[in-house]
Structure formats: C-alpha cells, structure tokens
C-alpha cells in the first residue's frame, strides 16, 4: 500500500478541487458514477480537436485516424479484461449491454434469424414458453427488468436466487433453480448496494451443466478488482465506462466468440450491415453487428484513456486501496450503534460500497445532513428495489469509493454522520 499515493492520484482529478457549500467536496458517490482524471478529459478533447471523423468508412486521412483511435480503444479495453478486441462491443452503458443480449435472444426466435448458426448453438439461443431465466434478488434493475421483459416477449419464466439477511446470495437451491429448463443465468459480480462479491464459479458451473448462458453484470467489479473474462468463465459480461473513470455515454459488452457470432442483432441501421436490399438485409460480423449507427467514438477513446490510467495504478493496488477504505468505513460505522450496516462484515467479501440505515431516520434525511457538510453520498433504493425489500429496509444510504477516495474522506463522512442523531433526536447509545 505504501506505493499507492492517493494524493498524487487525486491531483489528476480536477473536480476533486471543488468546494461544495463552502466545504471541500467529499465525493463518496463513485458507485453511481466516478469522477474523471484529466487524461480522460484530454483524450476526448484531443480526439475532437485533431481527429474527429466518421469511423470505418472514410476514404480520407481524418477518418483513418478516427478509426485507429476507436479501434485502439477497443484493444485497450479488451486487454484490460483479458479479452480479444473482436469480442468487445461498445454500447452506451451497461444497461444497453444487457438489453443487447436480452433482445438478441428474443430476436433469435424471429423467422430466419438463426439461419446458418450451428444447431447446438442455435438451441442455446432460442427461448420460449417453458424455458426459464434465472436472476438474483440482489440485481440492479439493469440486470432484472430486461429479463422480465424478455420473459414477457417470449413466454419464458423468471426465477431468482434469494438473498440472505447478511446480504449474500443464497445458493442453497442452486441445483433446483438452475435446471434443464434454464436458458440464462444472469447475476452481478459485485452488488452496487451492499458491495458483496458474488461467487461466480459455482454459478458458472451450474449453468454449464445445463447449457445455460451466463451473463455477468460487472459494473461494480471492473472498477475495483482485477477482472478477467477467461478466468471467470462467463458467456457475456457487461460494464460501464462512467463508473471506471471513463466518460459518460459508453458501456461495454464482452461476449464469448461463438455466441456473439450467432447472436442476432439488436439495434439495426448503418455500419452493422453486410448488404442491404429493400426487402432484406444481411449483417456484418461482431463487433460491428452490434454497433449500429455512428458510434460514441470520443467516449470510447476516453474509456481507453481511463483503462490506461487504471492499468498504470494497477488493479491489484486499486483493490488493496479499496479494502482499506471499506475497512475504515465498516470500523467507523461499527462504533455507532445507531447505524446498521447492510451486507457482509468481512472486507474480503465485499468491495466498493458500504450501505447502511439509521433506524428512525429516512436515508433521504441522512443524505441531506451529509450534503450539508459537503459529503456526497447516495440515498434511496440505488436501483435495487427488490434487494431492499429482501433486506427489509425501505431504502438505504450508501457511501461508495473509487481509486481517488481517501481514509480522511471516510473520517469526514463519519464525523458528519454524527450530526444525524443530533438533528433528528435519535438515541445514540
């Protein structure tokens, strides 16, 4: 840890110099969206000032430069998660990435959509009545609602793993829930609320046994942990640029080559076609097939710079730093008996975020008190309403971290939190 100089990291993030309500900004809402280092902001700017043009199509110099910048970004992102560039699709956010898979699967049932696909692969992609999609109660809405809608479109049935009171996945019914009817098992790598790091291996193994496709929501793991698609063994993985120091407006879908190759397109239009006639169209190979229209080139380039930045820090070091922050938050909150922390207590089992409730005070009011001290946290259901229901709380307050967060910030947060019982007259003993 001694080599990780967080003050030096902070110097790279212009917004961290800001004051809020005359106090220095303490940004503990990185789980919602992270801040951006100057190198990311500059990468987008340089792209616009020097190279901006349509990619993949121009017969001119600028267009070649833009294409090179875009494809170089794809290579960087691929390397970052241990993937091949051809298997990386740029989307607008992780939500689109997951919808891409869900719509690709329902489109697979349209007439002719799987022509030419090997029958064993086609069989895995076809979903209808009687089939089952399995998710978990812990999911962000982005990895739940698209599957509900896929079920609505196809007649398949949604099933889910429950969550324990301790905020972990309850896998005791694994072999019942994942069965021969299961076509998809979709789950998050790390919970965006309770920070739980879920066990990927048993879920992948169970899905493999029945030939189900695994879809991993890696939004909260990729920014905090070393992540490799080959090690994880999943079939699809979605994550968002804006949560990993990258720009808004860019997400990523990685897919296993044989499945990507077979998956029908989602959004259709220019740049994803092979040949177009008035009455039919043939489609390009991945990743182009899934990148219809003019892509988010500047944002992809920015994400490439973010990945460079994280790689320079080293994801192992980022993970170690995160542990220190989470531990400091857990320790500080444990000293306040009027606070109830959600999720695992062991820092090895969690990362990125700490959510809690103050009984008798609504999280909105907790957040407001913190904001008054310049401390930015998030309150509410954090797009994980069913998880809150499972944990029997209406909502929660969440402090979440990134590579630039400091223990001092955690302490400032804890100190400000002490005003909550004061203002709302809560018993502190």
């Amino acid at each position, binding site marked *: 840890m001694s080599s990780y100089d967080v003050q030096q990291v902070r110097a790279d993030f212009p917004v961290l110099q800001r004051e809020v309500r005359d106090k220095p900004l303490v940004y503990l809402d990185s789980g919602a969206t992270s801040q951006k280092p100057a190198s990311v902001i500059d990468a987008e700017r340089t792209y616009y000032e020097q190279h901006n043009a349509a990619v993949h199509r121009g017969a001119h110099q600028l267009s070649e430069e833009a294409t090179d910048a875009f494809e170089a970004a794809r290579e960087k992102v691929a390397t970052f998660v241990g993937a091949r560039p051809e298997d990386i699709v740029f989307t607008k956010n992780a939500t689109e990435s997951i919808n891409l898979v869900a719509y690709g699967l329902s489109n697979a049932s349209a007439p002719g959509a799987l022509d030419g696909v090997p029958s064993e692969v086609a069989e895995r992609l076809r979903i209808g009545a009687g089939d089952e999609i399995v998710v978990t109660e812990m999911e962000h809405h982005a990895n739940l609602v698209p599957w509900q809608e896929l079920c609505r479109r196809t007649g398949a049935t949604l099933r889910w793993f429950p969550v324990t009171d301790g905020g972990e996945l309850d896998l005791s019914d694994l072999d019942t829930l994942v069965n021969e009817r299961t076509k998809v098992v979709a789950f998050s790598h790390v919970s965006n609320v309770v920070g739980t790091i879920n066990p990927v291996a048993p879920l992948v193994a169970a899905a493999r046994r029945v030939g189900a496709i695994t879809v991993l929501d890696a939004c909260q793991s990729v920014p905090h942990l070393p992540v490799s698609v080959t090690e994880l063994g999943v079939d699809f993985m979605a994550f968002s640029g804006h949560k990993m120091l990258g720009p808004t407006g860019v997400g990523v879908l990685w897919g296993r080559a044989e499945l990507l190759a077979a998956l029908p397109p989602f959004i259709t239009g220019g740049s994803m076609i092979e040949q177009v006639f008035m009455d039919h169209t043939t489609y390009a190979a991945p990743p182009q097939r899934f990148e219809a229209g003019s892509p988010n080139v500047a944002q992809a380039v920015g994400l490439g710079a973010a990945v460079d930045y994280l790689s320079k820090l080293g994801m192992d070091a980022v993970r170690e730093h995160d542990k220190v922050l989470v531990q400091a938050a857990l320790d500080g909150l444990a000293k306040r008996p009027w606070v109830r922390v959600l999720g695992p207590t062991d820092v090895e089992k969690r990362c990125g975020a700490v959510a809690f409730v103050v009984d008798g*005070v*609504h*999280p*909105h*009011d907790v957040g*407001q*008190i913190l904001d*008054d001290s310049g401390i930015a946290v998030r*309150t*509410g*259901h954090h797009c994980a*309403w069913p998880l*809150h229901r499972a944990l029997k709380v*209406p*909502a929660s307050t969440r402090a979440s971290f990134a590579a630039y967060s400091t223990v001092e910030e955690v302490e400032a947060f804890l100190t400000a939190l002490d005003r909550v019982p004061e*203002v*709302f*007259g809560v018993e502190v003993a």
Partner: protein
Amino acid sequence: MDLYQQLILDHSKRPQHAGLREPFEGEAHHVNTTCGDEVTVRVHVDGDEVKDVSYDAQGCSISVASASILAEEVIGFSVEESLSTYEAMRAMLTSKGQDPGDEEVIGDGVALAGVAKYPARVKCALLPWAAYTDALVRAGVDISTVGGQR
C-alpha cells in the same frame, strides 16, 4: 441548516391526521421514483367542503411533514380554498428560494420554505399535494378551473 425547521421535525415525528380512514370518495397512490418515497392520500368531500384527508406516507421527513401539513391546511376548507393553498405551496416550493410563502395561506407550510433551495427535495414536499389533487379528481371533483396543475 435551515431545511430541518423544528416544525418539520415535529410534523414528521407526529404526523397530523395520519392513517387511512373511511369514508372517502377518491384515493391516489404516488411514488417518488427517484427515491421510492410513497404516499397514499384519501379525500372525503361533501359538496364543496373537504371533510377529511387521510393518508399513509412512507418517506423522508420532508414528505411526511408535508403530508401532515397538507391535512392540517385543507381539512374543513372548501375545495377551492384547498387548491389555492396547493398553488401557494407549489409557488413557494418551486421558487428556488425567492418566495418565502405566506403563513396566512399555507400555515405551517412556511416551514417548508427552505426546501425550495434543494431541487431534489422539492419533489418530496410536493408528493402528498400531487396525490391530493389526483385523489380529488378521482373523487369526481372538477379541479380544472384552478391553473398550474401538471
């Protein structure tokens, strides 16, 4: 901070006229989608008079206090008066702090004046009022003569 006036804390801890009661002619359930705050409001109108407003409010101190103030400020008044009170509340809450509110019109509602400076909380304060006007509509009351509804 001037947001949490003692009056608001009092209303949120001991919400007036809380609970769902019979009889009622209209009921509306509103949700603040950004945070999950929920409120159900029932209205019992008799001719032109708001006989009762009952409610179940699950949410932050601001939305609960606002529901409590709503009940206090409209029960026993005419529908038209209640809608004027709504308009005055709305004007104050959306004034970004320019309109301090008139105690003559909105009573304890003035304690919510500080909310106007926090756009994210304005929705909380308006939630019960929006549910109230919706409940009126469902009770068959014509509220179209009063401007400014969303």
